[in-house]
């Protein structure tokens, strides 16, 4: 009964809020400026509404579906901005209600607006809005246009829900829903075998990570009796959990992050996920969902901080992934795959930052990366839209033809390469400092090399696509419509300026704000040696220079180190044969094991049954042989049986006595 009243209460509250909000005159809204973080829960609901609406009537709306999606995400964006502004001055807001009762335990759901969440809300809703807008142009003419928008809405809902979850269970729920959105969008071109395989792979590989998260979460629950972040941190601080358990749960949860963020060894799905439409790659597989792993580690940062081993694991995996993916990116020829490996590598960077206790650095890079990588993907989408191929060897000399896209792409490339003055520079610098200060010189070195590689392959991409002569057969290359270029422009601006919220020069506003009230997260800015910045700059410029020499000016042959057909190139081009390795080990094992079980099922289980039925049939046949059809025999048998019973009865005086 309690729950019903609660249901009424919650329902009533929702209606009351919506009702009040609707009834309030517009000017009051403006005056109040929507200054209530309490209403942050509305933010994810807009895209959900969009999803449901498009599911129901999308078919009729056709391409007008875009407006529903755009409008709804715009609403989310506006609210997110308001909430973010609000959060600058107000403390964290937390709302919870009982979601599920298990005996004495009450699992809650709700939402929380803390600094990280507010920031993520903004990033996600912004990128989502831009991608919604962009897709109107990109997906134009697709017969499943409305489905695409519906899926986008679903994904945005899940992602926004993920970032305002106050507890790890709710995070997990949206975590999986995000995976669903990603799955659906990767498989959007369902008729392509590659898309089908990629979607399946993405879902399953992230699911492997999710199981780790699930186990870690459950183990944590039994340690702290709560899924709430705050309770968990309290328990960690109080030392209520043994060290081993902290390490174990942290690593398990990190496995979840590995899956979602495409870290080694669960990274292989992310490049394959590029089978989805390009806006999807920008939204999900660059800016938001893949960053969820980083977000998760950041959200549970105090837990990780409590275990050196766990932190070290995060840092090592991150650092290794950064250089590992970057090295693969060096030789890929598919424009989106290069970006995908770059994403994996950058996510590795973020993990490295978090693993080196650089909370701010990680989150900061998450933000800047979201902007410039989304920009890069959208620009890449624009290129693909124009030339209808993804192979960079068939492109070239597009600078003149794509007057608008090309400079924006360049901005993104500069940002990701860490050229001073752009956003990527500051965040990357922050990470390098964190790694150095965190006492991981080896990882620092790795990160530096990865930065070099990043600059190199990104400019390799840039030069191959936009400079030189056209190697493709495209004749009708045109600039994209404004619905596509405008979002890119906005992202381009952000890719340039976003870095200035947290710089060693103009103050670390973002860092201070993020760590405000949470001393455990570390300081807003870690002072590092000045040479690190210089080193970073030199490294990235060197990378750009090398790329220019090889692909721009062509003064060095592309195969000066290792050409096509060489072992190194082959290994890199085939992504270190990781997929093949999995195919040969895990997949083969699972299949083999399944066939073994089938053998057991067919021969042993069924065999035993056949044996039993055989025995019974044999007995039956014996019995039917005894059936001679002679009444006298039957009578004799019946009588002898009776006689035996009677004699037994007479001798023993009967059973039960």
């Amino acid at each position, binding site marked *: 009964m309690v729950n019903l009243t609660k249901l009424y209460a919650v329902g009533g509250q929702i209606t009351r809020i919506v009702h009040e909000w609707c009834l309030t005159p517009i000017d009051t809204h403006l005056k109040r400026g929507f200054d209530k973080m309490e209403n942050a829960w509305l933010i994810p609901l807009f895209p959900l509404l969009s999803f449901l609406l498009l599911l129901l009537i999308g078919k009729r709306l056709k391409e007008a579906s875009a407006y529903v999606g755009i409008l709804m995400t715009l609403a989310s964006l506006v609210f997110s901005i308001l909430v973010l502004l609000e959060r600058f001055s107000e403390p964290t807001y937390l709302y919870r209600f009982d979601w599920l009762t298990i*005996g004495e*335990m009450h699992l809650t759901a709700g939402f929380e607006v803390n600094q990280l969440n507010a920031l993520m809300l903004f990033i996600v809703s912004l990128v989502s809005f831009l991608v919604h807008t962009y897709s109107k142009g990109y997906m134009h003419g697709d017969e499943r246009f409305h489905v695409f928008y519906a899926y986008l809405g679903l994904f945005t809902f899940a992602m926004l829900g993920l970032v305002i979850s106050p507890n790890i269970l709710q995070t997990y*729920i949206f975590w999986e829903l995000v995976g669903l959105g990603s799955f659906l969008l990767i498989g959007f071109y369902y008729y392509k075998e590659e898309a089908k395989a990629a979607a*399946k792979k993405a*879902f399953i590989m992230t699911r492997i990570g999710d199981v780790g998260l699930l*186990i870690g979460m459950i183990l944590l629950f039994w340690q702290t009796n709560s899924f709430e972040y705050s309770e968990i941190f309290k328990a960690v601080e109080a030392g209520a959990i043994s060290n081993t358990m902290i390490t174990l749960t942290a690593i398990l949860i990190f496995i979840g992050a590995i899956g979602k963020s495409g870290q080694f060894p669960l990274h292989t799905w992310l490049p394959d996920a590029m089978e989805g439409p390009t806006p999807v790659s920008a939204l999900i597989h660059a800016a938001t969902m893949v960053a969820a792993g980083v977000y998760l580690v950041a959200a549970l940062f105090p837990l990780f901080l409590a275990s050196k081993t766990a932190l070290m694991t995060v840092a090592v995996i991150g650092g290794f992934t950064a250089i590992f993916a970057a090295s693969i990116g060096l030789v890929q020829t598919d424009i989106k795959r290069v970006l995908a490996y770059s994403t994996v590598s950058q996510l590795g960077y973020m993990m490295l930052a978090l693993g080196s206790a650089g909370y701010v650095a990680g989150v900061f890079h998450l933000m800047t990366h979201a902007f410039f990588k989304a920009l890069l993907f959208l620009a890449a989408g624009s290129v693909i839209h124009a030339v209808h191929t993804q192979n960079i060897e068939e492109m070239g000399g597009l600078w003149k033809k794509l007057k608008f896209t090309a400079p924006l792409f360049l901005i993104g490339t500069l940002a990701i390469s860490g050229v001073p003055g752009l956003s990527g520079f500051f965040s990357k610098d922050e990470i390098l400092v964190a790694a150095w200060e965190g006492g991981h010189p080896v990882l620092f070195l790795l990160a530096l090399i990865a930065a070099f590689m990043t600059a190199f392959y990104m400019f390799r991409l840039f030069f191959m696509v936009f400079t030189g002569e056209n190697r493709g057969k495209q004749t009708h290359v045109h600039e994209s419509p404004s619905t596509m270029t405008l979002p890119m422009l906005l992202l381009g601006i952000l890719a340039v300026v976003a870095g200035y919220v947290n710089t060693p020069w103009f103050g670390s506003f973002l860092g201070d704000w993020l760590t405000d009230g949470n001393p455990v997260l570390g300081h807003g800015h870690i002072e590092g040696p000045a040479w690190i910045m210089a080193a970073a700059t030199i490294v990235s410029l060197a990378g750009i220079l090398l790329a220019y020499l090889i692909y721009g000016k062509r003064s060095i042959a592309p195969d000066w180190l290792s050409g096509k057909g060489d072992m190194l190139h082959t290994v890199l081009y085939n992504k270190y044969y990781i997929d093949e390795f999995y195919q040969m080990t895990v997949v083969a094992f699972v299949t083999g094991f399944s066939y073994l079980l089938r053998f057991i099922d067919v021969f042993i289980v069924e065999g035993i049954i056949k044996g039993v039925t055989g025995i019974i049939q044999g007995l039956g046949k014996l019995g039917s042989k005894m059936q001679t059809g002679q009444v006298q025999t039957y009578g004799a048998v019946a009588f002898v049986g009776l006689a035996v019973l009677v004699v037994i009865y007479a001798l023993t005086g009967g059973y039960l006595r």
Partner: protein
Amino acid sequence: MNLHAVLSLLVFSPLVGIIVLAILPKSQEIAIKAVGFLATLPPLALSLAVYAHYLAGKSLSDFSVSVPWIQFRGLQPDEPAYAVNYELAISGFQLLLVVLTSVVSTLAALGACRFIKKEWKGYFMLFLLLVTGMLGLFTAENMVLFFIFFEVTLIPTFFLIGKWGYFEKEKAAFSFLIYNGFGSAVLLIVIMILLAKTGTTNIVMLKEIIADPSVGLSADFKLGLFIALLIAFGVKLPIFPLHSWMLRVHVQAPPSVVMIHSGILLKIGAYGLIRFGMGIFPDQFKQLAVLLAILGVINLLYGAFLAFIQTDFKMVLAYSSISHMGIVLMGLAAMNEAGIQGAIFQVVSHGLISALLFFLVGVLYERTETSLIGNLGGLAKGMPLTAGFLLAAAMASLGLPGMSGFVSEFMAFLGLFKVEPWIAAVGSIGIIMTAVYLLRAVLGMTFGKAFRDFDGVLDLRGLELVPVLVLMLLIVLIGVYPSVLSSPLQATLETIMLGLGG
């Protein structure tokens, strides 16, 4: 209104439909279908009314009814009288199952209108009898009555499979009957022993008598009885290695029967284990908990791995049922609130999901005349709705949050991790495998290139959408707001936990 009559009315109201059907001539196809469908509505309405009664905050014990039925004295004058009463009652747990049964029955009747192509009269008469049996056994308050209803479900199912099934229907029907007959024989023996030893078969009284040490049933004896119960219900659940009958039934029976079978009949095993195994023999249950957990994990993984290599989608679903029932076992073996609640959730959730999946398979089979994954493909083009719902149902089945499968799986694992973390960790491989085999199968059918041209086939339409939508809505409702299930369960859980001594 006399509330005591409600349950009897609920249980026996489908019989009215049988009588009406008996009068109707065989050729009146539409009338027969209408009656068959309408006759499932009274139980649905009544069960919802009972649920509303519960929601209104009134006690469910208002509905209990107990009428003396069979009584006889022992041989010795000092022996107590043996009494078997006609006792129906409903608790929160039973209420859920009754609602589930009536909902799935109604939808299956609707499905039958489409899937059954011949002899509707006989079909619906047997079907309604089956409904009565299921409703009866979930509300029976004593074991003899339970057994009678149990048998009542057995016989109609046998004929429904054997007459209206696919190519190997006879074999499937016979395996069904033999396995379940074996199970029910074991059950009958247990019931008779309990009656002889205690003089009653009332479940509540039995619980007290068994727990009472002065009655003098030895621990070994009780353990034996419990193992017998485990076998009896293990056949039904089914627990590895007693599962092979169920595969045949799932493949050969008509879709509307499989909806009922997979949706509800399999749940009798879980119901029996919880109600009788756990309710009457808590100590023995505790003793074997680890074994049950291991069996559960074996079921889970065995089903999952085998589902991975099946070529027939129905077989995938059949093995998936085995796998999901493993989760029920695991949850029960955890013996804590989370685990048991998870098991019960899984019972309900799998009931809905598998009913939905088999309905969709029925639709697919009707349109394309195959359920082989290799022969399908690219269905999303020709049948976008079917493909979409198939995918959604698969997602629910693999435990996607926001749908009922997740809540149940999550709670079962939550419970088991507390007591047997290692076993649970091994079991969690099953979560991955579930995703693997379901996606392989469903994507194989809906995505990719079409094996042949499915342009001519029709998508879901008209009345076919009703079961799909209703089931989907329920699945999502439970997933989003699980309290609809969990709040009626609390009282039941408390009783069980009290019995378990913790």
